[in-house]
């Protein structure tokens, strides 16, 4: 459509962002170019609005493995012995004579890491909104999102240690693209009569996405240089591999909403939605999610008119349900896998096929049910506060329940259990002003208690993450425990002498750790059966915090502004897995200096030996659990506004200097107490997390 609009608006923006990684210059970086454009037009006395927007992002990325106990360079750096040089005299990379397996020279590891990744994302949408008459509107939106991913891999010839050798060069290239289409129709009716206001809305959304890829790899590059790492320059024809596939997913939603308010005093909203997903079998395809909420604006009542001190007072209550289908596709089907199941007859590989996993045809929507009551208040024109109490129950929790290997195939997702979070959130704000000076303080704190109410299997627990190869099932999801709690042995100090070893007995007099030597941990024999085994494991830590808090301070004087943002967490534990305890020759951290070396020398750090008969370092125990509480200055910004430039058509110039992550108060001994996890049962385990950088920024903006 061109021209003819009564009113038009447009918006255009471009941005560029570039960041180098802190550990591996040239090997880990990120840059992004984003272009945005949108237009809106109004026709026929506001009866027709149409508009569109387009966003194009071009991202280039080189990466290294973050929080990874097996492949990460940070773990390599922490576990490498200090005697091995980074480079030998002849310039080749040093190789440790002590540490083995995946622990390799981290600089050499970075040197052979040569993956590049690039994606182009195009998001476009267009809408038309028709107002039939004042109260009735219909809006139809079509949105599409396209991702084009490309990645390149290059493997040079290398030898990092006896277990990590590569003798041929190779390259790989993969292209994948994803096309998502969303089509949404919403009909809204809004009517006001007297003090009543009613809005009803019904709509539906259809979202489909399709993903396909093509991957090729080949060995024998004619030049061993990442710059020339292309499939056409790899000449080993027999090594060529190619694969590609396609997948589709669709989500259909029907929804409705009813709002009612009376005189801006009483508000009531109810919604209902039915979501259908291809990720579930025919009988479980749809999930139904209602919600209700009510609000009472007490300050708008007559009887409050005399209470000048209270500017606003509102009470709120709500109950609602949400769905989650985030499990990947076809979990409900028993699919057949052809991958890596072949066998050779007479040196010819024949492909094999068997079920990819134990299927779960009954898998269904996970639902979170949340009940909330809250109060908002603003008083004396300077203060505001909110208090919320909530109970959030996640039912039919979607998780892979790792079951017996006797199943003969990997496990699928299932709906296992009910997890409850209860908590209170406080929010407090204060802002004031004297002359040219103004300031503000915002503080929030949230207390949350997590508890697993039920687990959908007979055991009442699901095992979670491992640390290294020796410590398995370090986390657990179990009834009446916080999710992902640390499951291990309780240490009770260190045996200082043989007499103490012999004195550590069960009720019937059995010496519990007869093989232990002075300097070894004394473990609590919780079931009093005279031996230390799996049955003595218990909760030794909780990665979930008691509370999290944030504090923002702001100060402005004339054109100068200063702001600071602090955040913190209290009461959470971290399982320190930054040392490869399963590889006894890996480097110890400096606290080993204070280890037990004779009677009375230590009650916390055991003796160090090559055999470790007492499994001081291979049993997950309270020794590895540390307090992860921290407070951190996340951001500090000093800004200056230059005004009075109107005659140059400039409204405002703002310049600023900012620093992030200036200091952290914590007792945690690892690199960074803020540990993310991609997996709920991996929470709070530090496998050598990529720490947050301290950055300093100088910037400016001009508004015309």
């Amino acid at each position, binding site marked *: 459509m061109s021209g003819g609009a009564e009113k038009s608006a447009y918006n255009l923006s471009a941005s560029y962002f570039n960041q180098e990684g802190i550990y591996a210059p040239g090997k880990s970086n990120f840059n992004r170019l984003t272009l945005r454009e949108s237009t809106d037009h109004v026709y026929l006395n506001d009866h027709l609005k149409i508009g569109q927007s387009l966003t194009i992002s071009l991202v280039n990325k080189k990466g290294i493995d973050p929080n990874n106990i*097996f492949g990460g360079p940070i773990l390599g750096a922490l576990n490498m012995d200090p005697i091995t040089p980074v480079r030998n005299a002849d310039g080749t990379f040093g190789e440790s004579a*002590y540490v083995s397996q995946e622990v390799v020279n981290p600089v050499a590891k970075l040197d052979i890491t040569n993956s590049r990744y690039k994606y182009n994302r195009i998001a476009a949408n267009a809408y038309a909104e028709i107002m039939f008459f004042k109260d009735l509107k219909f809006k*139809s939106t079509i949105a599409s999102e396209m991702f084009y991913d490309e990645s390149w891999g290059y493997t040079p010839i290398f030898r990092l240690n*006896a*277990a990590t*050798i590569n003798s041929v060069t*190779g390259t790989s290239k993969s292209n994948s693209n994803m096309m998502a289409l969303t089509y949404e*129709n919403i*009909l809204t009716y809004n009517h006001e009569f007297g003090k009543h206001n009613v809005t009803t809305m019904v709509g*539906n959304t*259809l979202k*489909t996405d399709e993903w396909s890829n093509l991957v090729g790899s080949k*060995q024998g590059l004619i030049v061993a240089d990442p710059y020339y790492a292309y499939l056409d320059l790899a000449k*080993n024809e*027999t*090594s060529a591999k190619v694969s590609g*596939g396609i*997948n*589709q997913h*669709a989500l*259909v939603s029907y929804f409705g909403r009813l709002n009612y308010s009376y005189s801006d005093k009483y508000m009531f909203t109810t919604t209902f939605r039915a979501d*259908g*997903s291809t990720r579930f079998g025919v009988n479980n*395809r749809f999930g139904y999610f209602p919600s209700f909420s009510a609000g009472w604006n007490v300050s708008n009542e007559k009887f409050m008119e005399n209470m000048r001190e209270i500017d606003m007072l509102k009470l709120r209550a709500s109950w609602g349900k949400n769905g989650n289908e985030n499990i990947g596709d*076809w979990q409900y*089907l*028993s*699919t*057949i*896998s*052809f991958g890596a*199941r*072949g*066998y*050779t*007859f*007479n*040196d010819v*590989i*024949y492909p*094999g*096929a*068997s*079920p990819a996993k134990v299927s779960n045809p009954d898998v269904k929507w996970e639902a979170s049910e949340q009940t909330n009551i809250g109060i908002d208040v603003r008083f004396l024109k300077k203060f505001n506060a909110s208090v919320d109490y909530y109970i959030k129950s996640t039912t039919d929790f979607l998780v892979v329940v790792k*079951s*017996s*290997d*006797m199943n003969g*195939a990997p*496990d699928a997702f299932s709906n296992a259990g009910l997890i409850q979070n209860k908590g209170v959130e406080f929010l407090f704000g204060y802002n004031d002003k004297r002359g040219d000076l103004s300031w503000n303080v915002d503080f929030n704190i949230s207390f949350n208690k997590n508890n697993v109410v039920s687990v959908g299997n007979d*055991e009442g627990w699901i*095992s979670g993450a491992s640390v290294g*190869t*020796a410590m398995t*099932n370090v986390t657990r999801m179990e009834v009446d425990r916080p999710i992902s709690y640390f499951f291990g042995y309780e240490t009770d100090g260190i045996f200082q002498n043989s007499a103490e070893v012999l004195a550590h007995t069960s009720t019937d007099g059995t010496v519990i750790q007869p093989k232990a030597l002075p300097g070894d941990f004394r473990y609590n024999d919780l079931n009093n059966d005279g031996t230390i085994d*799996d049955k003595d494991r218990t909760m030794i830590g909780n990665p979930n915090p008691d509370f999290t808090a944030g504090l923002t301070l702001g100060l402005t004087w004339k054109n100068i502004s200063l702001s600071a943002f602090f955040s913190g967490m209290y009461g959470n534990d971290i399982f320190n897995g930054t040392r490869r305890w399963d*590889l*006894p020759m890996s480097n110890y951290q400096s606290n080993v200096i204070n280890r037990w070396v004779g009677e009375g020398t230590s009650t916390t750090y055991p003796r160090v030996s090559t055999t*470790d008969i007492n*499994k001081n370092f291979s049993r997950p125990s309270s020794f590895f659990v540390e307090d992860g509480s921290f407070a951190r200055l996340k951001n500090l910004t000093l800004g200056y506004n230059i005004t009075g430039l109107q005659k140059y058509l400039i409204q405002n110039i703002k310049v600023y200097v900012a620093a992030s992550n200036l200091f952290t108060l914590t007792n945690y001994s690892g690199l960074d107490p803020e540990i993310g996890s991609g997996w709920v049962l991996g929470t709070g385990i530090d496998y050598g997390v990529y720490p947050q950088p301290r950055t300093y920024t100088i910037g400016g903006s001009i508004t015309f």
Partner: protein
Amino acid sequence: MKKISKIFVGLCLGLLLVSCNSYLDLQPITEQTETQFYKTETDAFQALVSVYDVLQWSAPKAQNVPFEVISEQIGDCCYAGGSSANDVPFVVKMSKWQCDVDDPSFQALWYKYYYGIYRANVFLEKVTAIPFESADKKARFIAEAKFLRANYYFDLVRLFGNVPLITKILSSAETQALSQTNPADVYAQIKTDLVDAIAGGLPNRSDIPAVEGGRVSKHAAEALLARVWLFYTGAYEKSDLAGLTKAQITTYIEDVVKNSGASLLPDYADLFKITNENNAESIFEIQYSTKSTWGDWGYREGSEGNQAVILWGIRDPGATSPYASGWSFAPVRASLWNEFDATDTRRSVTLLNTTAEAVTYKAGYQNTGFFNKKFTALKANEPADGSRELNFGNNYPSIRFADVLLMAAELQLESNPANAQDYYSLVVKRAKGSAAVVPTVTKDLLMKERLLELALEGHRYWDLRRQGLNVAKTTIEKENGIVDEEMKKTFDLKYNGLFPIPQYELTLCKQMNQNDGY
């Protein structure tokens, strides 16, 4: 205007109400589902191949536990080895029979065999409904799956002793409710599967064309049954295997000797050449290949290569040596060299004597200077593509005709001494030349000959174990008085020669119990 509005309202309502549910009727496109699969002969063959696949899982769950390697490490011929005492701590503990119940290696072995068993069970259940053009072909496939299931159960029950017997597809809940089966019943099932496979359609060894090299023959099943019979009746002190008498098993093994078409290769040195696989002496040979060019260290099951080779290999032999660098696991007890006569051609084929061959290399843990030469890493065999450690192509001859002859001799020591003497002589004369003077065969001489003939092929520990726990203990610990602390071997009788049931399986499956002693 009003009218147009009304039409629009109608249209829009129509858009809203139109059902989108049909968009949800998607099916996987590049993935097949169980209901679409298992329809044709090709599907059946692919399902059967997936059962074979588990045979070559030499490093399940990334654990270095090839059956033949650990079998030597827990016996009297090999130590743990590796680069240092801490290279793979589990192997050191296992080689001294000081195992931890939660060591991931046991879980890895458990996983391997139950995955193989599951795939056999899936195949056997699904194949019944698949139409075949030839009933013989169907019977052959079924017989192969039964052989493989028996093979997996035999290794599993030998290693762990008390294991649940699963012969059909179970739900996850049913699996978790399992309890252990009396070993006698597991052995009975192994016998049934093998007897069925023999009677039910496996081809004769000589009828399998070269292109099918590695497929199971009737004679392989008979030979495996004899191995099971000897182990079970010995280790469990029984006179028969689930009703299968000594006379009956003798008939089976005689069929292999007389009718399989197999023969001893004239030169022992030819047996382990990578260019001479699936040879005249091969009865059941696990196939490995360099061709998968595997590189994923996280899923080593996916490789078609033999990952025992890198374990056996010596460490850093240098650029001009014919040997390729390996990880120096399972170094061989030095005294084994002297148990061979100097005239025995097997000695220099079996053992890499680093002093005699003047090989330079880096000594690893428990170094003796002697390594297994039959499967060691050679530069000539190094795979051109993929990670070299994961892709050696050396086959593992699980059952050789020499083994068959020695088993047949052992079974007929009393019933047909002439046969026993003939078979024993064949093996000895191949090793020492036709002029060699062969003594009158006895049980002891046969056991000695089994050690020499089959050394470092993964059979010795099981030969000791079937002679009783005390024989195993005395033999394994026999050098303790004369060697350093580091080289001491121990065999604790309280474990009955069995590995612990993986701790994780016990916590999950409440009806199961840990093996005695752990």
